[in-house]
């Protein structure tokens, strides 16, 4: 089948500015959008720049906007797109460096700000820090985050104001706040109890729709708000 690939282009080193290039390609229905981008880069225009690593939905490096919604290029099949014209753009809210590559620094700065690591100052036991299956299942959903930034860059609050910590950082805070072995929940809640913390979330669910790992992002944000309000981790 014939597919028209309309790709956002930007090279800070030339005078063309931000524009779209259209490529007409032959594709199988089972091809992924990443395969189309690879076809362009390998056979048509080697200057096309995008991130990719594992190409199997695990590393999260190829998050882009496909026909207006955030998706991983390696997880979307041509046959699942409603149109034979595929519009490809970089994710929104982060500065474009070249073509589909954006500056991820603000995203990771927010991620680091919520202490996204295990904190427990008790002396380590001889074997392991025990946790029941029920306690582990409490934060199972938010362990699935691959830091692709699809959720944060689908959030209008983040588009408007880059200071907003963003849904991804809150998801990663949730993962440790609800971990029964962790001891820094209060610090994380204090960080998120801020003008640019959880209160910029207006529950529009774009993040939940965008997440390629099907994490219930808005629900996790709501649970963090509830923990701040009640002082209980249920």
């Amino acid at each position, binding site marked *: 089948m014939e597919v028209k690939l309309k790709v956002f282009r930007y090279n800070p080193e030339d005078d063309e500015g931000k524009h779209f290039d259209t490529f007409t390609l032959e594709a199988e229905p089972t091809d992924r959008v990443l395969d189309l981008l690879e076809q362009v880069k390998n056979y048509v225009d080697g200057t096309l720049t995008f991130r990719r690593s594992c190409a199997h939905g695990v590393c999260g490096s190829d998050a882009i906007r496909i026909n207006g919604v955030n998706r991983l290029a390696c997880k979307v099949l041509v046959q699942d797109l409603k149109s034979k014209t595929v519009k490809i753009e970089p994710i929104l809210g982060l500065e474009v460096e070249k073509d589909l590559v954006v500056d991820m620094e603000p995203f990771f700065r927010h991620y680091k700000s919520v202490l996204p690591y295990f904190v427990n100052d008790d002396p380590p036991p001889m074997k392991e820090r025990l946790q029941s299956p029920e306690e582990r299942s*409490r934060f199972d959903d938010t362990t699935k985050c691959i830091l692709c930034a699809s959720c944060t860059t689908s959030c209008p609050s983040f588009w408007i104001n880059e200071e907003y910590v963003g849904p991804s950082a809150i998801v990663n805070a949730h993962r440790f706040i609800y971990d029964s072995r962790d001891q820094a*929940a209060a610090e994380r*809640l*204090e960080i998120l109890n801020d003008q640019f913390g959880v*209160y910029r979330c207006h529950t529009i669910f774009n993040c939940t729709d965008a997440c390629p790992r099907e994490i219930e992002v808005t629900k996790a944000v709501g649970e963090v708000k509830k923990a701040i309000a009640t002082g209980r981790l249920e």
Partner: protein
Amino acid sequence: MQSRKVPQPGWNLEYTMWMFTRLSGLALPVLGLIGITAALVMGARTQMDLGTLMRWTFFPNVSHVTSSNIPDYVPWGGAFWQIMQIMIAFFGFTHGFNGLRVVAEDYTNPGFWQVFWRGIIFLVWLFSLLAVIFVIINS
């Protein structure tokens, strides 16, 4: 699985207004229910039309029932209903103006413009509230 307690973060404007928005959102329909229930008990079912009853429900001011067939306006006025009106105005205005503040702060960073919009919204909220209290007390 037992719930765990965690020290609550300190109060700040965002947290206070976030809580207030939820509580006022609950308070407004409760106040409306009190208004409509009291109106029905005081004879609204046979003495006023639906439009008048709705006006009273959302703002229980005696001037809203003067065009109805109520024979005696005394139970519809008085301090209790004035306090109810002030509460409805306070919860409604504060809820709404806080919504405006949130929208303004979505689009501004801390600094001059944020302080400017906060100030404007606060002044308009204060003026509106004082004006409505003046009208309630003198009606």
